[in-house]
């Protein structure tokens, strides 16, 4: 049922170093943000709009203020600085003042002595709304028949890609209109923050669970009208992120309450509130038409993407670009006509989630690949192999694929993984779709196999100056690393010391507090931290090593250029000199800071042409599913995968990323969806938003393809996002294979299978 990992040597790169926070996390002593307390602390809570679209006529907070135990109530009038925030466009109000544009939009906040007092106070705030008809269908925005719901208009971004021969076609033409439901990141550790006002009341220290401390800092300080140096952020323990902590949620509210009450404020969302308090994966409708020659080779792709961005911009413009620039998937394509829209509606704001626009595109292009295969009379493997992209191929944006691109190897290595045993005649009921619900007998079950292959851009795109900072210090015979890289569970706190050990030959490495007292690390997203912050830590350690070699060289009269690290020693490459690093650094101290920037990228022109992406990673997934066709229930049996990782830096962490991503992709394939009706979320709870359980988890058989990526500072590609991208279409393809019916929408619901 699983692979056991044993025996480790030094915890250097390539070995399965264990998490330094592991003992704390298993014993309950690790402090998550929601575990934090401060003396004299009050609780904060948020009042949210019950309407998807309404004009605020009046707000009366007097009854709430009069409630015993309530310290203060704040609204838009209490925001001293910029009234809005946003990652790309500052279009989201800290508190709604004139209009509310989605259910759950913050309107006011309170501080009180107990969470229950907060709840009662919120109920006493009187708001009169003039309810308006919400814009819930993005097509109504595109057609222009709905008047703007925001001063910035209803089209967040529109972008085309025009490439090659616009009239190219072939004997095979297949098409489909694909629909992707709204997925939630559903991290377990709910939004939480603790804001502590400075004693002079002119500054604040925020402990928060976030993905990007410095971006939060700049947005918060603008809203608070405080200089950036009077707002300090420290990363609290983060219980998962998956994109949902990229945008501001409670940060500004918590700081405002703390400054107004002049007391520490703790805020913590409930699960229900969390569904309204953070952005989700964009629901999308994607039309694709592939033209192919008789052998199944892609000639041209036509596509139209519509992403529902919800009420505010968040990262919708970037998600759109990711989606449309991945139209072709990991396949050669010379001709394309792509039109893409990110639309503002009165649905919940959507933004970053693991896969970031590529998940949606991949479901469409992989569904199409199977249709081409069928039309050409070839197998799902063959169609992917004959179209597989390679390094040096041009993309539909005109950019050349410069990354290592072992697409064909991903496919063949996956195909070489043995298929699972057939379902035995006598089988545990828990192995069947429906499980302990006892809905099926062995004889009701049909097995299917399906494929998905994907390409995912790594790091930020479109000219963004993406960088990460790290400082390495040697002091008292020990290494100290300082960075602002958000540890959200991915394991950068494990990796960073591994890098330092490899570069410096020292084993005692300590990570200093993760806060804004050092330069930005950028966001823990876009599969970028191993590459970016890893590169920064590597760079800082190399600078320190250079100083160390100079020190040793002068002490022993050797040219420092002759010195190298060999395991835990410093060695003269030419002579016989050898000294342990630990001995060599006695009395030596040194500190160096390094910023790692990735190569420059460009914005797309009006035809969607330009070198907009930094690098790419690839993966193949093969899914085996058991389906009860009559009831429409599915059990995913096995996921085989071969992933292009560049280089494995920590095998244990890497397999954890693969298995975790696969489970999230499985969720989107068969169960996870925020169900919307008329702008209202119908299932904001874990009773009705279903996440995969231990009994839903497939057996994962994974191969890591190690082809050193020369562009990457450590040779390693980001591995966080690819696992969750093509597994979804692979599972859907397997269901189609089992039932012989097309499925155009995810998640696939029982009724989609059997009715």
């Amino acid at each position, binding site marked *: 049922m699983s692979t056991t990992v044993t025996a480790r040597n030094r915890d250097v790169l390539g070995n399965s170093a264990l998490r330094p926070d592991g003992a704390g996390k298993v014993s309950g002593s690790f402090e998550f943000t929601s575990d934090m307390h401060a003396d004299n602390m009050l609780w904060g809570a948020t009042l949210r709009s019950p309407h998807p679209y309404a004009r605020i006529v009046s707000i009366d907070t007097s009854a709430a203020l009069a409630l015993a135990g309530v310290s203060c109530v704040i609204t838009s009038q209490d925001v001293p600085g910029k009234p809005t925030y946003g990652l790309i466009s500052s279009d989201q109000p800290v508190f709604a003042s004139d209009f509310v544009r989605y259910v759950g939009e913050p309107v006011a906040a309170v501080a009180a002595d107990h969470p229950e007092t907060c*709840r009662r106070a919120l109920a006493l705030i009187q708001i009169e709304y003039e309810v308006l008809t919400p814009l819930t269908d993005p097509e109504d925005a595109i057609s222009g028949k709905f008047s703007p719901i925001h001063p910035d208009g209803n089209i967040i971004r529109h972008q085309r890609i025009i490439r090659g021969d616009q009239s190219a076609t072939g004997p095979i033409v297949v098409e489909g209109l694909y629909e992707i439901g709204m997925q939630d990141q559903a991290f377990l550790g709910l939004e939480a923050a603790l804001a502590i006002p400075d004693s002079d009341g002119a500054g604040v220290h925020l402990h928060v669970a976030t993905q990007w401390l410095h971006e939060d800092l700049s947005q918060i300080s603008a809203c608070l009208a405080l200089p950036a140096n009077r707002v300090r952020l420290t990363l609290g323990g983060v219980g998962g992120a998956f994109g949902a902590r990229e945008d501001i949620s409670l940060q500004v509210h918590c700081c405002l309450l703390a400054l107004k009450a002049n007391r520490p404020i703790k805020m913590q969302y*409930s699960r*229900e509130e969390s569904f309204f308090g953070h952005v989700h994966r964009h629901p999308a409708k994607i039309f694709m038409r592939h033209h192919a020659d008789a052998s199944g080779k892609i000639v041209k792709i036509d596509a139209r993407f519509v992403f529902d961005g919800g009420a505010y911009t968040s990262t919708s413009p970037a998600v759109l670009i990711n989606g449309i620039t991945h139209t072709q998937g990991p396949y050669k394509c010379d001709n394309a006509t792509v039109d893409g829209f990110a639309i503002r509606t009165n649905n919940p704001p959507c933004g970053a989630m693991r896969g970031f626009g590529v998940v949606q595109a991949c479901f469409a292009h992989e569904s199409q690949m199977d249709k081409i295969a069928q039309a050409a009379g070839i197998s799902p493997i063959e169609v992917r192999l004959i179209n597989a992209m390679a390094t040096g191929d041009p993309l539909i944006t005109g950019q050349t694929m410069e990354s290592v691109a072992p697409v064909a190897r991903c496919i063949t290595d996956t195909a070489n993984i043995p298929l699972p045993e057939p379902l035995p005649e006598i089988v545990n009921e*828990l192995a069947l*779709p*429906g*499980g*302990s*619900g*006892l*809905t*099926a*007998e062995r004889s*009701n079950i049909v097995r299917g196999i399906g494929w998905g292959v994907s390409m995912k851009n790594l790091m930020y795109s479109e000219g963004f100056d993406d960088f990460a900072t790290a400082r390495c210090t040697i002091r008292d015979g020990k290494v100290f690393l300082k960075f602002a890289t958000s540890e959200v569970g991915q394991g950068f706190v494990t990796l960073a010391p591994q890098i330092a050990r490899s570069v410096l030959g020292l084993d005692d490495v300590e990570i200093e507090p993760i806060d804004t007292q050092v330069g930005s690390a950028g966001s823990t997203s876009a599969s970028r931290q191993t590459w970016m912050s890893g590169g920064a830590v590597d760079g800082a350690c190399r600078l320190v090593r250079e100083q160390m070699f100079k020190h040793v060289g002068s002490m022993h009269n050797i040219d420092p250029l002759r010195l190298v690290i060999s395991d835990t020693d410093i060695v003269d490459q030419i002579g016989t000199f050898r000294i342990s690093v630990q001995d060599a650094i006695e009395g030596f101290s040194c500190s160096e800071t390094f910023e790692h920037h990735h190569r420059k990228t460009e914005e797309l022109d009006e035809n969607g042409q330009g070198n907009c992406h930094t690098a790419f990673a690839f993966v193949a997934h093969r899914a085996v599913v058991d389906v009860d066709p*009559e*009831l*429409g*229930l599915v*059990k995913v049996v096995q996921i085989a995968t071969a992933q292009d990782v560049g280089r494995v830096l920590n095998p244990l962490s890497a397999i954890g990323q693969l298995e975790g991503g696969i489970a999230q992709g499985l969720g989107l394939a*068969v*169960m996870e969806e925020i*169900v919307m*009706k008329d702008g209202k979320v*119908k*299932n904001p*709870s874990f*009773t*009705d938003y*279903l996440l*995969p*359980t*231990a*009994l*839903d988890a497939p057996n994962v058989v994974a191969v890591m393809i190690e082809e050193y990526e020369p562009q990457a500072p450590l040779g390693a590609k980001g591995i966080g996002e690819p696992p969750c991208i093509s597994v979804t279409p692979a599972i859907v393809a397997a269901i189609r294979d089992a039932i012989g019916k097309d499925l155009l929408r995810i998640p696939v*619901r*029982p*009724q989609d299978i*059997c*009715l």
Partner: protein
Amino acid sequence: MPMIIATSVESAVSALRDHPDARIIQGGTDLMVEINFNHVKPSTMISIRDIESLKKITQPSNGIIRIGSGVPYSQLEQEPILSVVPALAQASRTVGSPQIRAAGTLGGNLGTCSPAGDTLPVMFALDATVHLQSPSDAREVAIHDFMVGVKKNIRRHDEIITAVDFPIVRGWQGYSKVGVRNAMVISVASACLVADHNEGIVRLALGSVGPTIIRCREAESWLHSVTSLQQGEKISSDIAKEFGHRAAKESSPIDDHRSTAEYRRHAISVLASRLLTKAYS
């Protein structure tokens, strides 16, 4: 004191009588959700968790097993229930998570009376009887009369549910439940079928497809009219299918965020048909 810990049925019901605003709490797995989600603001609470007499399983007469309202699902999953009322054990195993099953109780399922309550179709298919106790009297109510709507039953404020009597049936019984994942799921549609070999009849009850649990009386009597329903009877696939269709016709499901009426009706026809086939295979 807003929390009253009752240690006997008598003290619980007299506390109920004395506190018209009081609410009963047993396992807490339903009520605490309401409180945590801010739907209920409790004032006086009467905890019956510590009443030992509610945790007993007895056999008051040959054909009856009496299960105390305080027996948790985790116990109902096991022997002796597994052998004596297997459908109840099967239904109990599908309730929530192991943690929920360790806390939630049979009485709680009845007290909440949700159409998705997993043990309720079993009670309806077995014609179970609910025991109620008030300060002044005790009464027994047929399950069919007990549940009257979505989360509505005829329990009076000063009564507590003390036990449920399940007839011990010679024959076959089974519970099936459709949910969208393989564990911990609220039923989209469920069915309990009991084939009583002594009486030569089949009884079918449906969950999550109407405001109350639905007994498929018409499908049952149609089946009775076309087959003998004796032990060892072979049910043809046509009869099983028709039985399923008739059961589905008796359901009255709705569209909601968990599923559609159309799917629920379809699922019922499949479940009923499969259960019947299993009962006579």
